[in-house]
Each structure stands twice: as C-alpha cells, then as structure tokens.
C-alpha cells in the first residue's frame, strides 16, 4: 500500500535524533512492548509480515505522531485480536472477559533462552529456475498494490541490475495477509542514484526485491 511508511526519498520529515550513550529503551514500557511481542508471537497467530502490515495500516497522521514502540504496541494488539487471543472488547477496556478462555503461557521464562536463540529463516527450497541472471537489467514494476508489499515507491518503474541471487524467500505480499508463504526468488538489485534521483555518478542504492516485483528491461 502507498502509505506514509514508504518514506524513501521524502524530505522534511524532521532532523536526526542523534543521542550520545543512548539507552536501549528510553522508558521501561518500551522494553515490555518488545517482550510482549515475542511472548505473544509464541502463540503462532501472526508472522513478521503481518506485524509490519499492521503498523502500515495505522492511519498516516497517527503513524507520524506515534513513537516507534507505540506503533509496535498497535501491531501486537492488532494481531492478538485477529488471532482470537483477546477480544476487541478486552482490548478496548483492558479488562478481562470472565467468560473468555483461560490459557497457559506458551513462552515461559525457562523457554526464553531457546526462543531467543531460535532461527526463523525466510529462505525456502525451490526447484524453479531463476528468471533473471546476475548482471541482467530489470525494471521494477510500476504497480500500486493495495495490500502489503516490500517494493518501495521510489524504485517503481526504474531500471536496475541484478547483482545477487538470494534463493527463494517467503513472499511478504501474501504472508502478511495469511495467504501462505508462496516463496519466490529474491534478488539483490542495484539502481544508480542517477537513475532514481538524478544523483551523483557512481553512487548506488541496492534493494532486495522478489521476482514478481521485476520485469525484463
């Protein structure tokens, strides 16, 4: 979706908040949000793409006025309601529905170290041959997707070169909508700064783009 989250190339979005000796969390509640996300994730009712899309669906004016972990909090609660773990009424009132199901936590303290060390690769096996070769020129497709995509607006319609083949990876465009992983070949594609912005010769921008985002140039 063409949301405010897709901000590559914009100007006027404030200054860099540079801070010496920055703490990991500026407020204790921020750490609790990170932890709640992981603990709720153990229920397997969401995925990283659905999480990102829940953040993208925050209306633009709110997205821009919320802090980073406030946006995370929205995604955590959105996925909890969608996954049937809490009811919309419970979220609104932050009060338990006595008729609701009582469970046992999936992620106990003893399981945290294993969870933190666990892998969640997006790489998948594929027998399909790659459509594009290293060095080949490709055009990022000019599409406007209503749902989730990882094809930023700033490269759409522009020509780049295939620089790397990462193998097949879970496709965010479907996974975010619980329509399956539908793995696709992922390529490292390099665009010149001149092609994208009329920028200085020699400078370049590289993105990781799925096969269906690209067409032969």
């Amino acid at each position: 979706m063409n949301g405010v989250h897709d901000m590559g190339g914009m100007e006027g979005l404030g200054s860099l908040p540079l801070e010496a000796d920055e703490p990991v969390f500026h407020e204790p509640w921020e750490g609790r949000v990170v932890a709640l996300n992981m603990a709720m994730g153990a229920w397997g009712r969401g995925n990283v793409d659905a999480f990102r899309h829940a953040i993208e669906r925050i209306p633009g004016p709110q997205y821009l006025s919320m802090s980073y972990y406030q946006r995370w909090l929205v995604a955590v609660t959105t996925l909890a309601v969608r996954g049937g773990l809490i009811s919309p009424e419970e979220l609104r009132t932050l009060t338990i529905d006595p008729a609701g199901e009582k469970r046992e936590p999936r992620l106990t303290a003893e399981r945290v170290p294993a969870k933190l060390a666990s892998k969640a690769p997006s790489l998948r096996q594929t027998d399909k041959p790659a459509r594009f070769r290293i060095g080949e020129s490709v055009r990022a497709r000019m599409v406007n997707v209503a749902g989730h995509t990882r094809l930023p607006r700033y490269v759409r319609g522009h020509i780049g070169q295939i620089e790397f083949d990462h193998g097949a990876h879970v496709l965010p465009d479907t996974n975010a909508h619980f329509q399956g992983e539908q793995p696709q070949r992922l390529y490292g594609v390099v665009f010149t700064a001149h092609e994208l912005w009329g920028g200085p010769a020699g400078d370049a921008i590289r993105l990781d783009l799925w096969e269906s985002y690209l067409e032969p140039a």
Partner: protein
Amino acid sequence: MEDQDHDHEHAQDAGQHPPAPKALKVKALESLLVEKGLVDPAALDAIVEHYERRVGPRNGARVVARAWTDPAFRERLMTDATAAILELGFGGRQGDHLMAVENTPEVHNLVVCTLCSCYPWSVLGLPPAWYKSFAYRSRAVIDPRGVLAEFGVALSPEARIKVWDSTAEIRYLVIPMRPAGTEGLDEEGLAALVTRDSMIGAGVLAAR
C-alpha cells in the same frame, strides 16, 4: 519528534513522577494478558534483560575485529556471513540471513530500512532512535552524503556511496576500514575501537 515521549516530559514538568499514560496502558495490557494466561511476566523480564544487557554492538565489533585480523575468517565472512558469524556464537533473531559489506577507499556502504526499521539485531542489538527516525529512513537513500555529514562523516570526493535498503529478511553488517595506526593492537583492542555507527556505515573510524 518521533521518539520523544511527551507524556514523560509532562510528568517531569509537574515535579512528580506518576507513570506516563503510555506506560499505564502497557501495564494494563500486560496485566490483561497475564490474567488470561497468554504471557508469563517472568518471561517478559528475561526478554527485556536480554536486549538490555546481552546483545548489542559489542557482538558486531568482535566480528569486525576478527575479520581484520584473520584473513581466513574474513574470506568466510564475505562468502557466508551467517555461518561465519555463528562461529563466534552470534545467532538468533534478526540474524538468520546476514551479509557483510566492506568499506574501501573507493566504496562507502550505508545501511537503512526505508519501509520500517530492519536491523541486524544478532550483531548490533536493537536499533538506535536515529536509525528508526523518519529523517533517516527518508533521506538516507536520496541524500546519503548530507546524512553522513550530519554524523560528521566527510568522504573523499572520489569515494562512491552504496546504500543498502533492507527490504527483505537479509540483514547487512558494514565492515568499516581498519584505522591507521592500529597495527600493534590485538583482536580485543581492535574490537574496542569499533563503533556501532561504523557498522551501519554512519560512522568511520579515526586513525590512532
């Protein structure tokens, strides 16, 4: 500003320290989820402790120092960073698919995530506020030299910039150039010189 906490500032202005509304809401949500048996508060404590104390840029600094001192490791790192970094014991979340990109006198690499805030947690910890800021996400791809100037980084005019926009699950670690004057340092001494920002490409390491 994106990451300022106005609620907290107001609480301070009032000369007392009641919990900020955001904190209260998170606390109430946590209580609800605990009451429903969905989360274990001790597990939450352990996760927070991990991100506050166990992971961070020290991990990445060890990778960089090893790459500078061990050519065979550097070779493995450049070929398969995920496996090479796992040799040092750094795996886990947001570290499943890593690539190392080396700065040279000719090419300076800079990492960003324009769409959200993808970052190599396993080697750098959670990202700093500036990395997640709208200013960085929007400008790093269109004006990398201007952004670098704000970090006090002035590249030589002949150096080219390559910006890596983390649009998939591949995470990028910049290997900064080893500073001049560090020939006598061992791996540990070198690791102590490597800054977080230099491993994102937003910093360079000064000669000793």
